[in-house]
């Protein structure tokens, strides 16, 4: 294998985009499937099918995309595109994510006045919304396996996950508080565990 073919970070994802055009078209295709949120589609297409990212890499990238300001999946597309082709790759993925859906949305907005309030249209939206809620839940369930290799250990991970679920789903605390509060405790704990595992490796 020539150096050009290895992944820039040497990780184990078995495939990668062939070109910036490939990035653009792939992101266009997955954005156009993303009714009620693109994340579930990104996971299915890029991790399960194309294998551009491992499950662990996806979770790591998603954590970063989530914590930085801006639309999460837009951040994610910038990160994935940038990893392979630098700034041009980031822009190709971003354009793929936004251009075609933008056109569709504006066309819908223009057409909307004629069908606004039709019961069948409203019902279809309701049904698609329920499926979309299921898709996003399943994406979370599928990623639980990524916690197996976590340095904090399984029980601590489950504890942080349960606390997050309670805070967001049941107590309805603002996301920023949860990310800052629970997030910083979890990162400090992981920092500590990483120190121990380094010391363990040396011993």
């Amino acid at each position: 294998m020539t150096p050009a073919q290895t992944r820039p970070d040497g990780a184990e994802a078995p495939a990668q985009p062939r070109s910036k055009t490939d990035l653009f078209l792939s992101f266009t295709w997955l954005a156009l499937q993303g009714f009620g949120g693109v994340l579930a589609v990104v996971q299915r297409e890029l991790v399960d099918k194309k294998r551009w990212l491992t499950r662990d890499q996806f979770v790591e990238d998603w954590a970063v995309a989530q914590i930085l300001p801006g639309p999460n999946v837009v951040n994610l597309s910038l990160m994935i595109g940038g990893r392979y082709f630098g700034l041009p790759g980031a822009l190709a993925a971003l354009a793929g994510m936004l251009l075609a859906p933008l056109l569709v949305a504006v066309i819908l907005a223009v057409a909307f006045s004629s069908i606004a309030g039709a019961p069948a249209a409203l019902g279809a939206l309701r049904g698609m919304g329920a499926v979309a809620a299921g898709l996003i839940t399943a994406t979370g369930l599928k990623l639980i396996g990524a916690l197996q290799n976590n340095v904090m250990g399984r029980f601590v991970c489950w504890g942080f996950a349960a606390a997050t679920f309670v805070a967001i789903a049941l107590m309805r605390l603002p996301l920023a508080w949860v990310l800052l509060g629970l997030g910083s405790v979890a990162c400090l704990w992981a920092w500590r565990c990483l120190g121990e595992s380094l010391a363990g490796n040396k011993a």
Partner: protein
Amino acid sequence: MSITLHANDWLQIFLHFLMLSLLAVGGAITTAPDMHRYLVTQQAWLTDAQFTASIALAQAAPGPNVLFVALVGWTVGVNAGGGVAAGMAAWPLGALGVFLTMAAILLPSSTLTYVATRWAHHNRERREVKAFKQGMAPIVIALLIATGWVLSAAHDNPERDWRLWLLTLVSALLVWRTKLHLLWMLGAGAVLGAMGWV
């Protein structure tokens, strides 16, 4: 509705959205309340119904939720171009609205993301970068599951909504356990909804 926007007003919109971009932690939709306050309540550049329709349409359309910002920009532009009654004559200003709002909401956050992730990638072996990724993993996974919960709990009448919850549960199980294409499930949801079965 029909409004008049001067160059300075467009500049104000651009600057306001630039600021919102950096506040959009947790997704663009978290800025919707402030966008509403500024555009609907304070400036009256679009109506409450137009604002709500922009969000609903963007969620129904494929693609990232941030597209609701483009539709808000489109509607403000069309309003400035004489309103819906003006027909295609209002579209150029609508397009200007899309361009300005999307550029403003994306530029600051995307620049920050690109620079920050390049840095993190070059320093991925550092202990603090690893600690961040490992520590955040259980939290972001739980956030996804919680999001599904929050979306379902918005429908809170068990007698009327139990079929909706069942649909959510079944689609979650199908995505989790099978390789069935997501579009089939979304299509089935749309059909069930349009027929009035859920």
